[in-house]
């Protein structure tokens, strides 16, 4: 009967997810179709690139089977850990279940079953898509059956490890917490060793089955551990910041306009959520990665495509896109939905909707000079490229910043996600579509000037400036549309 209850709760959760997804799909059918097309394009690109890289004889770029399996393991482990935190240890609504006549183990099973079901479904869809595309595109890569066996076993292990790590990290007493986490974290090292050693396939399979069994034993630890972890996480002592954000005082002196006050509020929140530190960290990390790549491959790596000259500019472009996506595009998608039920505060203020939109935009753009300065300049200086190239890449990154912020803020107003349980985070479909849309549109803005740059430096730079102007105009138009959409938002919840 006990297990029956966990299944009943699990099926209710699944039904809720199904209803939410189908509602969204029927609300935006074109967006759904576009998402499927983009997903297939994305998988095809990865397969083609993997096939191409396998033909190169560059050790640094060579990706082995073990690397792929470990990356997938790490991805699902992180995902399961984060989903456990959001769905359980930060989920105050579980109090209704904890105060009901339901066994604690049933609640734990319900939470884990949901994570297991959702991620295995995601894996099955991805594997089916990749398999279909593999045959359709006639990809010349050898993949044996054991790869898939190991893949599924690794994902199950990753979900268990992620769930258990999240639970252990919330244990109330420090010493048992650190000892158990220290011991259990060794399973991650073991996964690395087993996926990278030259082991027999059957041995790897057996090892993974043993690891899953051990993880299940940790998972089935007394229910009180799970209960204590939840209580500690929900109602345990927390530290709240009282630090003032000094740059804000300078910012306040500069302007008293309402949109600056909106920006001030946004920046304060981002500062306290430590997003500002993350922005600087990401920029520094990417910059170091690029320099490291240069020292590994040399100034003109031979890729056999005659693109040696453009290898680094392409890599810099990809890095800028990554940084812009993490610092501007994805945060911009949460600008309105994160307000959620708090939206009354700004909506009842005597401030024009366009001030709200531009204030939010300003809070995103204020740290963007870091991107061209930290990511583009160091490698361009190392490469000793002509000044026109440096200028071109710098302006191209400005184009990307403009378009990302414009598209992001428009999408945030067009597809806000007011689901309380995700704190304004965009759904996967919106996020993926917007990312791809931004990549494609920005590429179009840069390709034509790039063509001119290859023939005449001055003409190329002039064309990229023109592109930047058009990108700025597009951002302005997208913000105007976002203003209209924001104005029509009603606090009907």
């Amino acid at each position, binding site marked *: 009967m006990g297990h029956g209850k966990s299944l009943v709760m699990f099926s209710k959760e699944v039904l809720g997810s199904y209803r939410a997804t189908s509602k969204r799909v029927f609300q935006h059918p074109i967006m759904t179709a576009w998402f499927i097309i983009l997903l297939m394009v994305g998988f095809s690109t990865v397969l083609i690139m993997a096939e191409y890289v396998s033909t190169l004889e560059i050790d640094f770029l060579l990706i082995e089977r073990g690397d792929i399996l470990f990356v997938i393991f790490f991805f699902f482990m992180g995902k399961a850990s984060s989903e456990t935190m959001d769905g359980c240890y930060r989920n105050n609504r579980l109090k209704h279940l904890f105060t009901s006549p339901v066994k604690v183990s049933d609640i734990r099973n319900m939470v884990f079953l949901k994570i297991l079901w959702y991620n295995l479904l995601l894996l099955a869809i991805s594997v089916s898509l990749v398999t279909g595309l593999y045959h359709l595109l006639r990809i010349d890569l050898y993949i044996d059956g054991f790869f898939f066996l190991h893949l599924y076993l690794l994902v199950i292990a990753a979900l268990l490890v992620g769930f258990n790590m999240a639970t252990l990290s919330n244990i109330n007493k420090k010493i048992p917490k650190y000892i158990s986490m220290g011991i259990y974290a060794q399973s991650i090292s073991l996964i690395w060793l087993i996926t990278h050693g030259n082991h027999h396939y059957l041995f790897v399979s057996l090892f993974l089955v043993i690891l899953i069994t051990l993880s299940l034993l940790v998972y089935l630890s007394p229910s009180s551990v799970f209960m204590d972890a939840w209580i500690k996480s929900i109602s345990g002592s927390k530290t709240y910041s*009282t630090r003032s954000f000094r740059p804000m005082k300078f910012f306040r002196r500069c302007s008293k306009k309402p949109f600056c*006050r909106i920006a001030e*509020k946004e920046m304060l*929140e981002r500062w306290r959520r430590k997003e500002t530190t993350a922005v600087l960290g990401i920029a520094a990390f990417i910059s170091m990665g690029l320099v490291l790549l240069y020292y590994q491959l040399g100034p003109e790596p031979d890729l056999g495509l005659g693109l040696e000259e453009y290898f680094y500019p392409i890599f810099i472009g990809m890095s800028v896109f990554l940084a812009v996506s993490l610092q501007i595009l994805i945060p911009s998608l949460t600008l309105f939905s994160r307000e*959620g039920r708090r939206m*009354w*505060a700004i*909506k009842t203020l005597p401030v024009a909707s366009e001030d709200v939109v531009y204030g939010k935009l300003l809070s995103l753009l204020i740290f963007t000079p870091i991107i061209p300065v930290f990511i583009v300049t160091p490698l361009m200086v190392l490469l000793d490229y002509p000044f026109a190239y440096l200028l071109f890449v710098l302006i191209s990154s400005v184009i990307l910043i403009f378009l990302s912020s414009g598209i992001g803020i428009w999408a945030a107003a067009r597809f806000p996600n007011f689901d309380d349980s995700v704190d304004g985070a965009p759904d996967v479909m919106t996020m993926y579509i917007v990312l791809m849309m931004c990549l494609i549109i920005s590429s179009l803005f840069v390709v034509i000037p790039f063509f001119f740059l290859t023939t005449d430096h001055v003409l190329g730079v002039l064309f990229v400036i023109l592109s930047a102007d058009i990108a700025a105009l597009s951002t302005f138009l997208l913000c105007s549309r976002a203003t209209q959409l924001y104005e029509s938002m009603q606090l009907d919840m």
Partner: protein
Amino acid sequence: MIEVKNLRKTYGDFEALKDVSFSVDEGSIYCLLGSNGAGKSTIIKIITGLLRASDGEAYIDGIKVGDNTEYKRRFGYMPEEPHLYDRITGREFLDIMGTIRDMDEVLLNESIEKLAHELEITGFLDIEMAAYSKGMKQKILFANAIIHGSPNLILDEPTSGLDPRYTRYIKRRLKRLSQEGRAVLMSTHITSIAADISDMVGIIHNGILITEGTVDDLLAITGTENLEDAFVEVIDGTR
């Protein structure tokens, strides 16, 4: 002055508000009294511009709601649920909201200190609001509604989550504000609060403003001795 004319709000086939009209004069307190789900919050959200009416109009000091942002300068608002920004402090919240309303910086700081002292939240003012209890959040919301001295006050269940001492404080404060000439519109389902401070009471049920008048008028019409009995009598009379 707050005026509502023939307000209607529909959600598909469901009619949440049916032809609601009333007005709140300067220097008076109007209580919208109704059961849960009667439509009180819907009316307040429409007047504050958070929801759009399907039909009808609302005016604040003669300015039509929704025309531009000017009407928003004419009222202070306190929502029913204390949804506030977790990662900013109470002082920062009041400060940002006040400066957007063009309050003088010195006056704003003085007002924050004074209100914080009155509401006994001085010690919490510089802590992120995530650490606040529901009652403390209610106090911040009340302070935010009155700090800028707008001529109209719109309060949705203002005493929810407050202990009897602060319920009394809020009642007295609202009475004083109305005596200073402000128009106060508040919703509540607590009849004793309505009886204590309101100049006019409007009883709303299933989206219809069934009756309105002073407390004495309502007692006389229903032939009852207190507002709670009058309220029950009016609601039961509709069945």
